[in-house]
């Protein structure tokens, strides 16, 4: 087990394309780090540099205390699960899992014991004699995991391991991976562009955009205190709404209506900017009729025309189109395209309580939780209202939560599930 330390890592491909630009990232010993970002932002490239399949153009990569820039993949002692699993089709499941051990020239009894233990943990025992071609997607995925965990690697690297599975299986495997990682306590770097995986699996999440690291933090920190427009828009589904607004010292004038800005810290942060972008998450809206009078005081109420509603049973989405100045509208469109979102027009997405009776075409009163809104500089995209105190508090909370989870998992091992004991030995 080891920490992975990246210092000013740059990757320039042979054709001159810079896929990773000056990334510095510390993955602590035993930490579960998620890499997210839109397609083509350099996630796989970064992962492949860690494992050694891609040369590092400049910068320093350390695993433990060893600089590995020039070390061959097989000497880095990392294990990797590829996006398409890359199982060896000519070998049985048993031999696939045993492959790294055979290369390490382990004695036969040890290989047999470890393969069987691993198969037990991953519930593959009855498939050991089959060939990968005859397995289902989830089984193949587990074989790939088995090959990764069977030896005592210093870290696990995953490149979108669940992207080929259907939604149900993905959910199952997600919890499986989480459990396994906490139990083995091995440093893990996990690439994904799935929101749920990013938010639920990781101790910390690193967001990449066009090869540049945007923000690293606990999922909560990214969600509550994003550093810029990009992270704010990327984390969360549906994405945060960005409304162009002008500020007159007390109120923000948005296309949805006038919203008071009471918080002096936020007002100060805006400074003398004429135009800003106001970021409000869909769930920070509510049908004003359902909000108690006392709560209403803590926010603002606007009157809007609702274009479309979608009722999902547990909640309800409403779409509110608005007019934006042409230059800002263009900028927002570019952003939403970059975020792989399919929003073509400027409209606010609003999550309402399922019991709300607002219907499409109505003029409706919406309540906005103004305490949670963010204000961004339209020119730089920077979040002007990020709360450093809150960030620190969230950081402490994340550390505590992680400790607690580890402990609970380890306790669970001692007196718990039947496969727990088998799982411990591969972790060494």
């Amino acid at each position, binding site marked *: 087990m080891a920490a992975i330390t990246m210092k000013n890592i740059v990757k320039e491909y042979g054709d001159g394309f810079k896929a990773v630009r000056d990334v510095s990232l510390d993955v602590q010993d035993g930490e579960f780090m998620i890499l997210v970002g839109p397609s083509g932002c350099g996630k796989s490239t970064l992962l492949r540099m860690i*494992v*050694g*399949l891609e040369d590092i153009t400049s910068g320093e990569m350390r695993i433990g205390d060893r600089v590995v820039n020039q070390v*061959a*993949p*097989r000497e880095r002692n*990392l*294990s*990797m699960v*590829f996006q*398409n699993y*890359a199982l*060896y*089709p*000519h070998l049985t499941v048993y031999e696939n899992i045993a*492959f*790294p051990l055979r*290369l*390490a020239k382990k004695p036969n009894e040890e290989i047999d014991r470890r393969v069987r233990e691993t198969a037990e943990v991953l519930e593959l025992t009855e498939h050991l004699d089959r060939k990968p071609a005859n397995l289902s997607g989830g089984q193949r995925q587990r074989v790939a995991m088995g*090959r990764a965990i069977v*030896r005592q690697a210093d870290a696990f690297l995953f490149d979108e391991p669940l992207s080929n599975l259907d939604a149900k299986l993905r959910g199952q495997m997600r919890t499986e991976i989480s459990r396994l990682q906490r139990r083995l306590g091995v440093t893990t770097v996990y690439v994904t562009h799935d929101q749920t995986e990013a938010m639920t699996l990781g101790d910390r999440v690193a967001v990449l955009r066009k090869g540049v690291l945007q923000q690293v933090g606990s999922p909560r920190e990214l969600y509550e205190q994003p550093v810029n427009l990009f992270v704010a828009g990327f984390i969360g589904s549906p994405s945060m709404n960005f409304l162009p607004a002008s500020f007159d010292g007390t109120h923000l004038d948005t296309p949805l209506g006038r919203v008071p800005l009471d918080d002096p810290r936020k007002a100060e942060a805006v400074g003398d900017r004429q135009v800003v972008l106001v970021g409000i998450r869909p769930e920070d809206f509510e049908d004003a009729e359902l909000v108690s009078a006392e709560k209403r005081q803590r926010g603002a109420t606007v009157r809007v025309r609702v274009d479309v509603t979608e009722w999902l049973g547990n909640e309800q989405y409403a779409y509110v189109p608005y007019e934006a100045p042409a230059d800002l509208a263009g900028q927002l469109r570019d952003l939403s395209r970059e975020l792989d979102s399919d929003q073509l027009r400027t409209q606010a997405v609003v999550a309402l309580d399922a019991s709300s009776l607002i219907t499409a075409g109505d003029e409706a009163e919406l309540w906005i939780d103004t305490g949670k809104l963010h204000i961004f500089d339209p020119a730089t995209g920077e979040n002007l209202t990020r709360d450093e105190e809150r960030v620190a508090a969230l950081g402490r909370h994340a550390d505590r939560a992680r400790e607690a989870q580890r402990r609970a998992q380890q306790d669970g091992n001692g007196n718990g599930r039947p496969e727990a004991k088998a799982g411990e030995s591969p972790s060494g």
Partner: protein
Amino acid sequence: MRESGRSRVLWIIATALILIWTVFPILWIVMLSFKQPGEIGNAPKFLPRDWTWENYRTVFSTDLFTSALINSIGISLIATFVGVVFATLVAYAIARLDFPGKKIILSFALAIAMFPVVSLVGPLFNLWRDIGLYDTWPGLIIPYISFALPLAIWTLSAFFREIPWEMEQAAQVDGATTWQAFRKVIVPLAAPGVFTAAILTFFFCWNDFVFGISLTSTGNARPVPAALAFFTGESQFEQPTTAICAAAVVVTIPVVVIVLLFQRRIVAGLTSGAVKG
């Protein structure tokens, strides 16, 4: 419905025509090989008047033929083995590595495949006589390998290209050296391709006539296709046509058997590069 019925009939007719066109000469040779030596010219009929195995007996009791058969088998097998091993290594390098001159090697291989073999025979004849390779096994094996290599390299590199590179990278991460990854993962996966290349190379050597007749002079190294030309039959006074036909049938049999057994593989091997690559 009518339209498709008619086109079906046309297809069947066309197929039958082509079949007759190609099968007839072969059948004719087979029939000749079962006739009495004296029957040719006296009774011009397609079917033999008296079926006989005599020609085959003659063929197998002639030194000329049996030694040629041994030469053919030995030379073809050795040339195939050496050629395929070389071709595998070259094709792997071409498919996987980026090195200067890769394009040149490929075009060079193609150029050799296009080269008119006959124009080389004269110089080779002189050279082989000077350095003592004339009428020896290596004297045939060497040109066979050089002319079979291009096709084998092209076939194999198409196969290698289709093996996902991640397979090899996975092996490297699992702790394999480049050589181990090649031996334990790539070669087993490319086995069908290697096999196809081997069959094609074997045919090339087995069927060769030009080198066989020009670079040999005795039973030392003369392969069957060349030996047939020197066949005299049992009696000096009769035309050896029927015996030659029997010998031709004997050498054709391995080819036919191999093709029938591995038909699918050969077609897949020949087209895999064209369709997917």
